[in-house]
């Protein structure tokens, strides 16, 4: 193994090394070994009289095709195809130092989130029995999302000024959540608790895509991030449930009740810290494992389409009307959210240039049948509202339904154009991305306007 005085040759070797490193089945030491081989070969070839670049061509050719090589390496080390799940500073642009700094920042922020949840207790606002759960519900997102925003500001290297701008929505949310004189357990209080995370998620999104100014590509990445975050969070939560269960069981074995520990510390602190940890995992692994959200979309789109069609057919067949109860409106809102989600994540995994295929037809069928089902439900609900008047819950649910309906109706139109080769898939994607802020703006309206309008009921 020789170092060459020939500068261009060294550069070519460096390029080759960077190229080989990108293969997931080839680890650092393997690349070093192969590079050593290449250098030995080059030394022999130049000694035999070849010029540097000629020698390089021959040596690389003799090394063989990298595809075949990494396939063989993967076969010899089959665990490597799995082991990518461990955190490794793989990308060339991330130095080990940066990775270590990020680990530290994430740990600090996660601990900060866990501590933040306990801070109100210092002022006598207790969580759990005999405490003030509504306070925590109203402020839930404020314990974690600012820290998550800080993480992304740090990660994207944003300036302090933009960070201060992003502090505004959080300050506003804190103000509205705590200054309004809510009637405890009232509808408007519940609405605030549900809607302020949706409104604030937009602020997180701004921090997430900072460098791209929330351009469409950045928005799509943020949508992907949100989906993966939800999946990771659920997985971590499952682990947390097991952990808590064992804690309770083991202390019960020595006649001690660890309920206060679980309810007062493990669950709230874990739930807060897990958001940061899950975000970090999604960030670290986005290029490493297959994204789960599109996979789930592919699995469930046909099933939901079938469900909606069967439901419609049954309704027509039996002629039984929708029985409008309190939760029906919310239920149909959730149905539309789900369909929008399926649409979004199908779009996120799709190559916008690809021609329409069977799955696209299925998507359109899903959207159209959801629209029909929702139309039927809406007429039933409208009748009920005209009979019993407006409540904050009904107005909020109706507004959401309308927003989603507009989105889906236009999506269905764009989808139909695309399927008839009259438009591109990109148009549909742009529409979905352009629509994203609408959800947050509506949520913000609910938080800001509803309590005073409806008299804090």
């Amino acid at each position: 193994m020789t170092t060459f005085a020939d500068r261009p040759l060294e550069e070519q070797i460096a390029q080759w090394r960077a190229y080989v490193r990108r293969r997931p089945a080839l680890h650092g030491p393997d690349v070093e070994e192969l590079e050593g081989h290449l250098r030995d070969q080059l030394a022999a070839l130049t000694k035999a009289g070849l010029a540097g670049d000629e020698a390089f061509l021959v040596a690389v050719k003799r090394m063989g095709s990298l595809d075949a090589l990494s396939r063989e390496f993967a076969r010899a080390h089959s665990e490597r195809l799995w082991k990518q799940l461990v955190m490794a500073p793989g990308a060339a642009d991330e130095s080990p130092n940066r990775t270590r700094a990020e680990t530290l920042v994430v740990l600090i922020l996660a601990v900060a989130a866990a501590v933040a949840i306990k801070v109100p207790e210092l002022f006598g606002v207790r969580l759990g029995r005999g405490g003030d759960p509504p306070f925590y519900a109203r402020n839930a997102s404020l314990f974690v999302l600012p820290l998550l925003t800080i993480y992304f500001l740090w990660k994207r290297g944003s300036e302090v000024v933009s960070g201060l701008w992003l502090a505004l929505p959080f300050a506003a949310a804190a103000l509205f959540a705590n200054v309004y004189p809510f009637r405890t357990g009232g509808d408007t209080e519940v609405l605030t608790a549900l809607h302020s995370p949706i409104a604030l998620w937009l602020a997180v999104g701004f921090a997430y895509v900072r460098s791209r100014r929330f351009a469409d590509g950045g928005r799509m990445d943020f949508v992907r991030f949100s989906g993966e975050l939800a999946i990771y969070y659920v997985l971590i939560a499952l682990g947390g449930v097991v952990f808590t269960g064992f804690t309770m069981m083991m202390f019960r074995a020595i006649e001690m009740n660890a309920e206060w520990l679980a309810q007062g510390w493990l669950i709230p602190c874990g739930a807060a810290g897990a958001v940061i940890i899950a975000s970090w995992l999604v960030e670290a692994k986005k290029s490493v494992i297959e994204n789960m959200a599109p996979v789930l979309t592919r699995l469930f789109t046909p099933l939901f389409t079938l469900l909606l069609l069967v439901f419609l057919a049954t309704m027509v067949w039996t002629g039984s009307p929708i029985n409008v109860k309190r939760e029906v409106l919310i239920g149909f809102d959730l149905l539309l959210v789900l369909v929008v989600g399926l649409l979004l994540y199908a779009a996120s995994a799709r190559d916008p240039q690809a021609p329409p295929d069977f799955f696209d037809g299925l998507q359109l069928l899903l959207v159209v049948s959801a629209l029909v089902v929702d139309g039927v439900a809406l007429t039933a609900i409208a009748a009920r509202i005209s009979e019993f008047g407006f409540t904050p819950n009904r107005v909020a649910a109706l507004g959401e339904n309308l927003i989603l309906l507009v989105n889906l109706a236009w999506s269905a139109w764009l989808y139909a154009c695309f399927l008839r080769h009259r438009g591109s898939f990109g148009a549909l994607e742009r529409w979905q991305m352009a629509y994203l802020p609408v959800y947050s703006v509506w949520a913000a309206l609910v938080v800001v306007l509803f309590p005073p309008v409806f008299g804090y009921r």
Partner: protein
Amino acid sequence: MDMSKDLVAASATPLVLAILAEGDSYGYAIIKRVAELSGGHLQWTDGMLYPVLHRLERQGHVAAKWSASENGRRRRYYRITREGRAQLAAQRQQWQVVDGTLRGIWMNACTA
């Protein structure tokens, strides 16, 4: 002469083990030795040797360690283990059976 891929792959293990049985070595030197022994008829794709070496290492037939080479960079040296020698002996017997059988039939073909 173009050797069939399967044959090259099948002969790789006994060849590598046999070369290492002569003494510790490293990738580039093993390839050179193979070319030398076969009179240039056995041409491996250079990179493919390394997955073979790594597989043998996992199976415990060879052991590897990094040490400094004569030109300062570190290099991975391979050494045959006791299991490797046993494996080599077994493979040798198998190849002798194949070789003997083929010899027999081709001899008959010549004399017939």
